[in-house]
């Protein structure tokens, strides 16, 4: 019984040591500084194509690697990346006519970090015939 009691005391000491381990520290502050969000998004529907334009502050252009253009399918709340652009205009072509298309745009800085996406803008695309 004495030996067993010593084992119990050893187990208690081991328990104290194992429970003393703490988790890692929480990272302090928010580490990311996203690029500004594009503004004045405008979508103009054409014949089986839509032209997407937006504005971006000139002061922030130097730190931008590219703009990302997404098609937004509202009924599924789904985003699909359809292309990238170095300038503030993008043409989405070879579309099926007589349908509405919605888009969102975001800016990506030179490190590859993507800023907030714009609200969606939609346009009706006409058929070629």
């Amino acid at each position, binding site marked *: 019984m004495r030996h067993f009691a010593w*084992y*119990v*005391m050893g187990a208690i000491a081991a*328990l104290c040591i194992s*429970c003393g381990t703490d*988790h890692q520290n929480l*990272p302090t502050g928010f580490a990311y500084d996203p690029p500004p969000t594009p503004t004045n998004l405008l979508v103009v529907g054409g014949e089986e194509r839509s032209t997407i334009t937006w504005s971006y502050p000139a002061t922030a252009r130097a730190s931008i690697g590219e703009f990302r253009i997404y098609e937004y399918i509202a009924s599924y709340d789904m985003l699909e990346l359809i292309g990238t652009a170095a300038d503030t205009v993008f043409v989405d072509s070879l579309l099926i006519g007589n349908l509405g298309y919605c888009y969102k745009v975001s800016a990506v800085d030179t490190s*590859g970090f993507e800023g907030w996406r714009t609200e969606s803008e939609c346009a009706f695309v006409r058929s070629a015939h």
Partner: protein
Amino acid sequence: MVLATMIVLCGLASGEVRGGENIWYSTAVPGWGQMRAGHYGRGSLFMGGEIAALTTLMIADIQYHRAVEQYDRAKASYLHATYIGDAVDEYGVMHDRWDSAENLHGIRETALYAAIGIWAVNVLDMVLFDSKEEAPLSISARGDGFLVTGSLSF
């Protein structure tokens, strides 16, 4: 608490404390020595308290490790985020898991201290207040099993 435990341990090691063999039973399993001495109420209290504290400690420890794993995953996702929306979401998740881990760590520590405290008080109780009364019912370990002994006093 630590001082009291050390005093008891030194006493046990030197064999200068009262209580005899029952102390070793209480040291091994809180309340067992008291029960052997016939103090079933005190023994049940120590044993029940110790079981409750250790059960709480075990559950809190499992949940704590689970929360830490979730926190580590959220932290990794946050640190590797390439979209501000994902970074904000993961930052929130990371904070939630951190708070959860902190709470569980507190519960775990409280349960651990409670378990150690109950154990130490139980041993002190045997050292200081162990009476030499004959137990009406006692259980003792033997080489090949346990011996249950009943006695009548007049």
